[in-house]
């Protein structure tokens, strides 16, 4: 009886099961870079907000947590959008390179499923935040987006390497905490989208990419 062959069979089965149902080439470096973009974005945004508050006679954002000035909101929107586009483009590019190395396809059933399960909660969150902006619940936008982003990561974790689950849970908790600190939204964003991404990306990099 050839036990070695059965052993090989078993490991082949395990590999096929995970390769076919999970997208395994998510790049760790892209997580680090996304975090860096987020920190840069937060820095730019804080400068904008400071300048605006100074022009209105407030000392800090904490004294004025519900800014709804159209011009400023639009500028912040562009900064956030720019960070998002850069982060997504980097993630696609680097994951493509990693997939190429792993012999995995970037646009395969596994990656489509990953993307869909990530984008549905995130899209819902984005629209919900626009609605909050519409009604002027500005102080809750930052916490809500952190929570929705965390839920998206949690949902996506079933379709890729499991580490993203911790990133999701951390962002959900951070978002909930942020609801109690109106006016510090940007700081929480820098922590959640910036620092947490850098930590997560580094863990991914050292665990899988090295």
């Amino acid at each position, binding site marked *: *009886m050839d*036990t070695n062959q*059965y*052993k090989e*069979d*078993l490991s*082949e*089965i*395990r590999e*096929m*099961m995970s*390769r*076919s*149902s999970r997208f395994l080439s998510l790049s760790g470096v892209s997580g680090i870079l996304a975090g860096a973009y987020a920190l840069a974005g937060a820095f730019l945004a804080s400068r904008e907000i400071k300048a605006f508050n100074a022009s209105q006679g407030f000392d800090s954002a904490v004294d004025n947590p519900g800014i709804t000035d159209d011009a400023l909101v639009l500028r912040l929107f562009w900064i956030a959008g720019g960070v998002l586009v850069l982060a997504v483009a980097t993630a696609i590019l680097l994951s493509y390179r990693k997939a190429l190395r792993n*012999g995995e*396809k970037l646009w*395969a*059933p596994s990656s489509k499923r990953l993307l869909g399960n990530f984008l549905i909660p995130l899209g819902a969150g984005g629209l919900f935040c626009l609605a909050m902006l519409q009604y002027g619940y500005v102080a809750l936008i930052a916490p809500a987006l952190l929570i929705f982003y965390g839920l998206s990561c949690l949902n996506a974790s079933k379709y890729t390497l499991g580490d993203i689950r911790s990133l999701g849970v951390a962002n959900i908790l951070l978002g909930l905490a942020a609801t109690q600190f109106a006016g510090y939204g940007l700081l929480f964003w820098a922590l959640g989208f910036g620092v947490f991404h850098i930590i997560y990306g580094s863990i991914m990099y050292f665990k899988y990419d090295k």
Partner: protein
Amino acid sequence: MGLIDGIDKRFDHRIRLGIMSVLMVNTHMDFTGLRDLLEVTDGNLASHLKALEKEGYIRVEKRFVDRRPNTRYQATPEGKEAFSKHLDALERLLGT
């Protein structure tokens, strides 16, 4: 119970194991998807798919996607059960 009871000879091939593994965790997968995952030639894959279909372990569904023919495969309940038994037997055999 003998040591090799439950080892299903019909799964005694790397490609058949691969096909069943993929179809255990995915509700369905099309021909190209299987081919890319298993890294086998069309003819080779087709013959093993045929064999599994003949056993009633997988079901073939032919349809059109964007007017192009697309064949996708799905494990039948019998196929899933047989494969689980085969896996259990393998694990028993290896004492894991």
